[in-house]
């Protein structure tokens, strides 16, 4: 079994197992939604080397687009979601096109500026977005015979989409395109010198990432029935990024782990102690200090330790291989 089908099976196990462990379909849905957003972020961070602080833009836009479509047009859910994907991709193309003109920290800051810019845009155009109150009353219509009203039914719907998206992103990552992204991440100058139009690749990566993130945002708005302003603010970008980093950037399943960990741990901690952010902060520090391959790296180490016999067979350098 190759690595990528192994990871897909792991992702499928997560999608099936979540309902067994979690009392709330809503929280489980949120895990998968953020897993999609984090995987999309990983495509930029882990594969292209782009640390984007703008993922919240696409997430928030996805929420608004699905909400506005369902509120103001008679179009079916499927089309509304499709619009979110398309707008996510389009805006990501624009943001990407502008941002990748700069590199390193300046790139990060540019995406941050965009994220603030879109936040204030959403804040200022309150007639469309509901401003600080958020876009309220977003319905969750049925899809043909599928009735999504109950939270577990909706979870099932999300789980199917999640697996589709995960498989698609995996395919993207292992394609020649994905391998080229890895090269660009490693040495952009050289990539250009051997003939790759680096900017086109980066923008394409952005568009794919934006599409998936827009989709995640749409599903989130449908989950809670609101497209709140907080879905497009800076903290959303930050959270998605942090999930991605703590998962590990080596492969896409790592992002699923990161999202699950972040969402579930935040939820748990916040019920224990109002000052739970202190604990979360400490956790982030610990991850950065001791788990630089992320949760995935930790998992790999545990598996290797449990199966000492197969140590050599499992690959020399765990976290390093692209998939």
């Amino acid at each position, binding site marked *: 079994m190759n690595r990528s089908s192994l990871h897909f099976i792991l992702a499928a196990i997560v999608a099936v197992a979540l309902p067994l462990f979690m009392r709330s379909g809503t929280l489980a849905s949120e895990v998968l939604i953020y897993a999609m957003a984090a995987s999309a972020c990983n495509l930029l961070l882990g594969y292209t080397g782009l640390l984007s602080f703008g993922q919240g833009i696409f997430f928030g836009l996805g929420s608004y687009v699905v909400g506005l479509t369902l509120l103001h047009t008679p179009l079916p859910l499927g089309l509304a979601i499709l619009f979110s994907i398309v707008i996510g991709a389009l805006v990501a193309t624009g943001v990407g096109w502008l941002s990748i003109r700069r590199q390193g920290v300046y790139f990060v800051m540019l995406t941050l500026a965009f994220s603030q810019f879109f936040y204030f845009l959403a804040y200022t155009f309150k007639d469309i977005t509901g401003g600080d109150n958020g876009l309220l009353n977003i319905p969750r219509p049925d899809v043909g015979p599928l009735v999504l009203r109950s939270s577990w039914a909706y979870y099932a719907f999300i789980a199917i989409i999640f697996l589709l998206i995960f498989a698609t992103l995996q*395919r*993207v990552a*292992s*394609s*020649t*395109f*994905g*391998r*080229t992204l*890895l*090269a660009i991440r*490693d*040495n952009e*100058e*050289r*990539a*250009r*010198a*051997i*003939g*790759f*139009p*680096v900017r*086109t*690749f980066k923008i*394409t990566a952005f568009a*794919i990432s934006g599409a998936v993130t827009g989709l995640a945002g749409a599903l989130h708005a449908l989950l809670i029935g609101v497209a709140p302003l907080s879905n497009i603010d800076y903290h959303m970008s930050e959270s998605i990024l942090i999930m991605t980093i703590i998962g590990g950037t080596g492969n896409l399943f790592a992002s699923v782990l990161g999202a699950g960990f972040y969402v579930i741990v935040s939820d748990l901690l916040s019920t224990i102690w109002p000052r739970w952010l202190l604990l979360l902060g400490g956790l982030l520090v610990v991850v950065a200090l001791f788990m630089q391959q992320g949760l995935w790296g930790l998992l790999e180490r545990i598996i290797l330790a449990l199966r000492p016999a197969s140590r050599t067979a499992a690959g020399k350098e765990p976290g*390093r291989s692209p998939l």
Partner: protein
Amino acid sequence: MSAQAPILAADKLAVRYGSFLALSDVTLAIKPNTIHSVIGPNGAGKTTLFHALTGRVQASSGRITLNGRDITHLSDDKRVPLGIARSFQVTSLFQNLTVRENLRLAAQGRTPLQALAPWRGVEPDGEATVIADQVMSRLGITAVADRVAGELSHGQQRRLEVGMAVAAKPRLILLDEPTSGMGIDDIEAMKALIRDLGRDHTVLFIEHNMGIVMNISDTVTVMRAGRVLVEGSPMVVRDDPEVRRAYLGNMMTGDIA
């Protein structure tokens, strides 16, 4: 031979770095299927010339033509599919990728748009992979095929650096000091390789090792202070008093290697 149209020509080429004129009034014609070397003191502008020819830096004036086509304003990646490839003086590899993957990418770079399809997988026996394997054996680095480039020793990296240019199967190959950092026996091998490349490619290379330059070049261009000082056959250049004074000295290097 002299009647043949040049594969690459530069006309009154100039390059500026800020206010510093690194290259001025360079006119150059590279004849197809020849081995053409560029020598000159450090800082003469040789690498800058390569940068300009490959599009890494934009010429501030002058014209570059490839097979008669004006490529002056083409970006570097757009020149690769037209048949130009290069190696760098300061090693520039994909440090975290394996040697094989480095070369596969270099081979893929000729048809970059094929790689833009996010659904297309990497075929293990695809053309690019095959080329990568060929280049590895040609350069004798098959043994480290699956090591990541960053872990190679300096000399091994230098060889891979040259391999990156070869893998693109260009018509014109530019090598910037291909033997620097190589061991004594490897220098011989490199010399043979360049000579070999010269059979079905056009080779333009920068070198400080006179043993190679004088032995295998068809034409030598000597640069100084951003300009062409002398151009001619190795014999002519070797005996030019100005070149001796400005560059060759007693030719300690190269005579032995």
